[in-house]
């Protein structure tokens, strides 16, 4: 079975720039995997994900989606497989109602009227937007707009879902809804890729993380290993998850340094207290 995404020696240079925005990127993502991409501003994260649906084509090297080279096909046919949700929902809303906004992609991809109706109903229900069916997308709150943006991409059932900074400007309730949503999308056996600065969100919701700096991948592996690696974090100018910071502060007491999940940290602290009592 081909990989969901296969990137080989990818180099990319913007037309008006003399420097490469992406340098020697090599990457493999399996179908059904849930991957986070992190890195400071200008590290090349968005440039990389724009290669996944062919909006950008490699200057050198190749990007393959389920074995198909992005250079050999159109954005429209790739977009059918790779759903890309942009950071700012205001950059895509135009329809007079929430319902029509979801319909847009379905009509572009040639879905039948019955399919459109059932899919829109399903999406509105799934994303809790039923009561806004006939409202203008511009009147929604920040969290609702974000959910609508995701719904308007997820509706055509792409195999790979890529989200650019989904937690920006979202409160804790919206973030929890987003975590739940990512869980559901993964359950549907879809490949999920999220670009984010929100280290705590990544630590709680992902297993694999790719770290980028200056157009290169500097680390790729499990969140436990990467997000607790001081050298990698320093190089990518990232802070560790809050839980890891606590663990580091408590390391003198015997707490392991590679903890990123709250429940594990709590268990370790409880064990420590129990041990102290026994002594």
């Amino acid at each position: 079975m081909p990989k969901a995404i296969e990137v080989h020696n990818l180099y990319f240079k913007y037309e008006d720039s003399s420097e490469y925005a992406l340098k020697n990127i090599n990457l493999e993502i399996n179908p059904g995997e849930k991957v986070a991409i992190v890195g400071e501003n200008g590290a090349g994260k968005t440039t990389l994900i724009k290669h996944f649906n062919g909006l950008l084509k490699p200057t050198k090297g190749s990007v393959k989606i389920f074995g198909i080279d992005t250079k050999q096909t159109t954005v429209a046919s790739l977009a059918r497989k790779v759903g890309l949700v942009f950071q700012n929902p205001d950059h895509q809303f135009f329809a007079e109602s929430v319902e029509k906004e979801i319909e847009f992609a379905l009509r572009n991809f040639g879905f039948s009227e019955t399919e459109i109706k059932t899919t829109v109903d399903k999406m509105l229900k799934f994303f809790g937007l039923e009561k806004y069916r006939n409202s203008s997308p511009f009147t929604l709150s920040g969290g609702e707009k974000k959910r609508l943006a995701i719904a308007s991409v997820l509706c055509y059932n792409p195999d790979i879902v890529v989200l650019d900074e989904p937690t920006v400007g979202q409160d804790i309730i919206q973030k929890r809804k987003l975590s739940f949503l990512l869980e559901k999308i993964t359950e549907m056996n879809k490949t999920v890729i999220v670009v984010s600065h929100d280290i705590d969100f990544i630590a709680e919701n992902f297993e694999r993380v790719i770290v980028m700096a200056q157009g290169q991948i500097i680390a790729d592996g499990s969140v436990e290993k990467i997000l607790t690696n001081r050298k990698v974090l320093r190089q990518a100018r990232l802070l560790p998850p809050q839980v890891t910071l606590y663990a580091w502060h408590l390391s003198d007491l015997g707490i392991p340094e590679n903890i990123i999940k709250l429940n594990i940290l709590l268990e370790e602290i409880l064990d420590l207290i129990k041990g102290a009592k026994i002594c």
Partner: protein
Amino acid sequence: MLRSLQSFRYIKKDTIIHNLDPRSKMVFVFLIASFIFISNNILTLSVILILIILLAFIAKSFTQLMRMLKGILPWIIFIFVINYFTSQSGLLLASIMSLKFATLAMVFTLFFITTSPEDFMLALNKLGLPYEYTLAFTMAMRFVPSLARDLQIIIDAQKSRGLELEKGNFIERIKKYIPILIPLIVYEIRRSFMIAEALESRAFGSSKRTFYYELKITKLDLLFIILSCIIAIILYFIESYFRLF
């Protein structure tokens, strides 16, 4: 689209042309533009063309100027073709008209790519235009690159949802621009309100403002103005006494 818009953008460089006072550059642009408007002599226009290219080299902005020229090339060809087929003198008039258009675009572009919007605003202010108007003008200029960037993001976002701008007949293709223009207009209107609020928060219009940086006419500026006048006299002589045809 982004690239051709980029060619009008001011890029800070340390050259004589960049360091001149905008007012002295305005004198030059005014004189040259006047000659372009009144001239019907291909020799005068050719001299102007060479002069602009020379100045572009001194300003280290030749590539940027050529990029702009590449952007307007379809219009130059359009003007040439229209004049060639509609006038009696054909080739000569077509060449003159397209040369007029190209040189005019070049002289104004050279001014804007070598003059920072702030300096331009100060110069307009010094020339008596109210601050509110000069600010509106420079802000409009400043937002061209961000407008182009927003446009690109919106196109990418809609293409990612299956919009194919290249497909369909003429009417269908025009209709396909609706999902691009609506988010762009809404987004920019919202942004303009935010900018207005930000300006008011920074006490815009509360009293007569002063400027931290004042423009000064230097000896170099005077020299440039005198040189511009000499060039104008030479151009006048060419226009009056030398004709190729």
